[in-house]
């Protein structure tokens, strides 16, 4: 220990330099410049590289918890740069000022997507066992109902078509139409509770079909208080 100290000790200076004079004004300038540098660096990171946000709402329910959770999102994908179908994006909410929305990209400019009515529980009016069949049992005359022909739209240039994962709880492009790419704030990388459980969205979400009967994920059940069910 003493050997190390002896090695790294500065050589004794025969005539040491005078201590710099630190007036209160120079001290204030020093502190102010440090704060500006810290703020600028964090703003640079938050606007161009990576940032986090707290989010809540049931519109992405099984994928993202309906209660409070935190999302780390990449700002390198802002304004829709390198966004693909299936990515979970954060964008300025078109219906609430200064609010953010978190949805999944379904269509890129020029793609064709199924146009559903707002908050429809299915896509293209397809029957879902357990959701739409219950309605059929309630009113008997609906049992022989003929399914209406679904409509498709082409996503216009410079826009993306977004949809929440929980189809009947999401206000998305089915409600406010295609979202301009200029509103996209970034692409979600991880979502979690802020502690130790995180899910990643970095792998491609749009996957090749796994063959007949190979449903990717099972059904999800969970308790949800009623106040959590307002569409987000």
């Amino acid at each position, binding site marked *: 220990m003493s050997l190390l100290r002896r090695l790294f000790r500065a050589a004794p200076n025969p005539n040491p330099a005078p201590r710099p004079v630190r007036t209160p004004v120079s001290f204030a300038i020093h502190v102010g410049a440090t704060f500006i540098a810290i703020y600028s660096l964090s703003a640079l990171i938050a606007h161009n590289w990576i940032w986090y946000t707290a989010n809540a709402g049931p519109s992405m*329910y099984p994928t993202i918890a309906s209660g409070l959770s935190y999302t780390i999102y990449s700002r390198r994908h802002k304004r829709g740069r390198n966004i693909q179908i299936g990515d979970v994006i954060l964008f300025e909410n078109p219906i609430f000022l200064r609010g953010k929305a978190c949805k999944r990209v379904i269509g890129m400019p020029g*793609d*064709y997507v199924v146009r559903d009515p707002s908050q429809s529980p299915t896509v293209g009016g397809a029957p879902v066992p357990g959701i739409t069949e219950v309605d059929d049992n309630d009113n008997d005359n609906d049992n022989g109902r003929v399914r209406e022909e679904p409509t498709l*739209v082409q996503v*216009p*240039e410079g826009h993306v078509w977004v949809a929440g*994962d929980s189809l009947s709880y999401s206000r998305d492009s089915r409600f406010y139409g295609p979202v301009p790419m200029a509103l996209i704030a970034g692409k979600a990388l991880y979502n979690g509770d802020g502690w130790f459980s995180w899910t990643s969205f970095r792998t491609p979400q749009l996957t090749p079909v796994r063959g007949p009967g190979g449903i990717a994920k099972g059904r999800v059940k969970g308790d949800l208080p009623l106040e959590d069910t307002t569409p987000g």
Partner: protein
Amino acid sequence: MAPPEHPFPVSALDQRLHYRTVEFKEKSRKLGGGFDLQRDCELLELVQYSCTTPEQQYQRTLASPTGTARMECFPFVRLFRKCQEKNGKVFHVETTAWEGEHAWKPSAGTTNNDTTTATATGGIEPTAEANAFANYGNYFWARK
């Protein structure tokens, strides 16, 4: 504000595939002769969920003593086709309503009958129903 939409029925998808818009003008895609969506494009899937609707959830909450209701989410697989044009441009087509288990099949002979019953019961046209904003406007200005 989003630009106006031009919805078209699923049965017209094969024709509409051949057009794209460049600066809001229709141009034809370079797809080559005998382009087949099922043969020439890669099939992809994306899992979303169809959960207990708010109405059903409300009924269940009223029935349960604890004030919470069990929400069930069923996976709903959306199908996509990834196609490539002759000049290398890639575009996707959502084919959930066109192929697979959720495909829409025209019921022979009953299509004419169905539209008459829909209008008789005061149902709105599918194009108007698709556009929530149009419905909102119709609340103030009645359609003639």
